[in-house]
């Protein structure tokens, strides 16, 4: 089942055509990696999907619902969870409270002026933290957490609204190499369990080739390749783009 469909996406900044005629789709339970060298238009593309940028032209639909023109918060209400390249959490709250916030929002309980927030959806929050392996740190403040742990908290927050689609911008950026595969492994497991479509951008080719079901490659705003990891690896155009960029992916993977 196709969850996200993107057609004819265009975006220019002044004279720079950042994204041109990009189209792809993600199916439920599928991990689609969006890769490309620096400046290829990955982030621009991403920000048009999550509502932070408005495309000049093109169509983005989530299970048939058009997303273009909606604010990030409206897109979230339709069932899109997000993690950020640089983690964004509420630093003055505990790990559990961070997840509780997402749950409170999901259940439309934010306007409440009286009941202590701390006691609402506590068990649900703990269950989500259990899934990402953060139960033992649930009472610590996010402001003092290690970066890798914050990434897992973000994942728990992203799962709070039972998303149909997860958008992960550079999910492993800033993490130790040993933790990266682990995090994407966890993501893949959760996505398959819940049948969630996952779209992620990533620089680490180890992560991409180990976890992605399918890969799309952007270069200078255009889609240059699409296919299974093996197909993309063999693609000459992709090899040409990546040669010399420092990211080497040889047969060894």
């Amino acid at each position, binding site marked *: 089942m196709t969850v996200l469909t993107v057609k004819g996406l265009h975006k220019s900044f002044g004279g720079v055509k950042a994204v041109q005629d990009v189209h792809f789709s993600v199916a439920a339970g599928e991990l689609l990696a969006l890769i490309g060298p620096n400046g290829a238009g990955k982030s621009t593309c991403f920000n048009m999907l*999550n509502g932070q940028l408005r495309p000049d032209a093109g169509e983005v639909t989530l299970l048939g619902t058009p997303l273009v023109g909606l*604010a*990030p*918060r*409206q897109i*979230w*209400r339709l069932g899109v969870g*997000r993690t*950020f390249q640089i983690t*964004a*959490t*509420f*630093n*003055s*709250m*505990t790990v559990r*409270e961070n997840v*509780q*916030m*997402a749950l*409170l*929002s*999901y259940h439309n*309980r*934010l*306007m*409440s*002026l*009286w*009941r*202590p*927030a*701390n006691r*609402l959806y506590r068990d649900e929050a703990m269950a989500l933290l259990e899934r990402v392996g953060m139960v033992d740190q649930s*009472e*610590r*403040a996010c*402001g*003092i957490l290690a970066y890798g742990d914050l990434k897992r908290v973000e994942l728990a*927050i992203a799962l*709070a*609204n039972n998303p149909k689609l997860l958008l992960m911008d550079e999910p492993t950026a800033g993490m130790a190499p040993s933790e990266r595969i682990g995090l994407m492994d966890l993501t893949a497991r959760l996505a398959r369990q819940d049948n969630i479509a996952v779209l992620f951008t990533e620089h680490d080719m180890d992560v991409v080739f180990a976890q992605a079901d399918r890969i799309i490659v952007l270069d200078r705003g255009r889609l240059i390749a699409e296919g299974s990891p093996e197909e993309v690896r063999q693609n000459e155009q992709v090899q040409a783009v990546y040669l010399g960029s420092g990211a080497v992916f040889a047969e060894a993977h």
Partner: protein
Amino acid sequence: MSLSNIVIQFLNGLAGASSLFLVAAGLSIIFGVSRIVNFAHGSLYMLGIYIAYSLIEFFGRSSILGFWGGVLLAALIVGLIGVVIEMVILRRIYRAPELFQLLATFALVLVIKDVALYIWGAEDLLGPRAPGLRGAVQVFGRRLPEYDLLLIVIGPVVLGLLWLLMSRTRWGTLVRAATQDREMVGALGVNQTFLFTSVFFLGAFLAGLGGALQVPREPAQLMLDLTVISDAFVVVVVGGMGSIGGAFLAALLIAQAKAFCIGIGDVVVFGTTLSFTKFTLVVEFVIMAIVLVVRPWGLLGKPQAAQRGSTMVEPPLHPLGKTFWSVVLGLVILLAVAPLGGDDYLLVLLVDIAIFTLFAGTLHFLMGPAGMVSFGHAAYFGLGCYGAALVFLKLKLPMELAIFAGPLAAGLGALIFGWFCVRLSGVYLAMLTLAFAQIAWSVVFQWDEFTGGSNGLIGLWPSDWLKDRTVLYFVILAFCVGGMAFIWRVVHAPFGYVLRAGRDSPLRADAIGIDVRRFQWFGFAIAGALAGLSGALFAFSKGSISPETLAVSRSVDGLVMVLLGGVQTLTGPVAGAAVFTWLQDEIARNTEYWRAILGITILVIVLAFPQGIAGFVKQMMTRKGLLKEVAA
């Protein structure tokens, strides 16, 4: 309006713009580099005018050299005062949270005001006209003072010199670099200490010069500090923080608008007389409100670069546990038995403390959990005062009902003002709140027929059953304790959490479906309404009110209470309001210079406990193991 009138008002506007530009440019440069909002900048201007007055008197009123020597020397002296302030106080708190730096500069305002009072006395001092420029030239048959012509030239000349300094010297390049990214400049090995001190010198020098040049035009007086600082804020915000050209443009725009309002005078529209002269008091704030909503970073400003790792991370909220409530209960019992002492004076003081605790509590709610600093919170206090008083006096409703008109009026005001304010953040938001407060103040101040103008309103007598001091005391106490309890509940409820979420990470809040602005807007209204309640209680506890209730100084009092108590602790406003009100009362009874003593006390506290009183106590208790630390 005739052509000659237009020309003359235009020239008046140009002359008025010069001093405004000098002060604002100094403020802007200091903010750009040090990120300190120097509330004492108006005080430096005031010192400039006083010192220049004294020097000119000393050198002789009619000597040209004496006049200009006095003006320049005064500016230099003020520059050096700026250096001393930077080296002795501000340098120690660059790493402290932004709000603490603000508190320190508030304290300086208090100290400088009393120093000026001590040296020059409370009388207005009008300096001589500039020797050699005492005449006037004829422009279209009207007289324009020669001195104004000179002022018209000075503004652009200083702008040009500053431009040369900023673009052609190594120092200027460093200042521009630091304005863009202070940490990076430090990382590149630039001696920041010297840079900051020299920037303070330049900023203070410009403020002093702006003041000194006004000697022939306006009398030196003690109210100048706060009027000038609010004018300068407006100019800097309209022009864009850190932009010198923007400050010039904004100073021109505002001075012209003011000049034309005076020039137009009274106009009859549809049978009613509109007084544009009265509009001068608000026109700059109206311009600022419009500019901020259309161009949130000012005319020539840029969005502020995020600062790295300089903000303290607030620890998570503890659920209000048994310890908390037992301390509150103990306090309430103490307050309940207080009337048994039979000391009427004590009851008056306790009523004041209770009212200002609620006022500070609402401001803390905005500044702490909601992360919106308000420089104009007095607006809601005052709207509450006047709302209740007017309903009581004009509609003849009983006091019991009139009290509720206070929060209603203030809540409505906060809904209207807040709608604009939540579109901004940080310093810009703070400035806009100040603008709205000034608008509210000047409406109350000028609307003689309705609000009693500068005389205020009298005859706010409580109902008969409240005539007894003790009964009134208990009723007011009940309202204040109830108000504070409500705020604490809200902070711990989902609504309070949403506000904190929006403050901690607007990006994440948006990504989990939260419309941050909408919640901030309601938060603003709640804080405003409760501040209005404290205002209404104040009105009936005093029996009379004046525009003072919504003046800048009241807002500053509130800020000092909150910052003194500590922004990060819920009990902060209680401690802050109690200590502040008591100190003010205690010192004011014994000396004329209570402001200076208060200011010095605040400075000592700021330098010694950068987390506020309550924060310090909490830290000590945690260290002693009396309080459990949740965040390991």
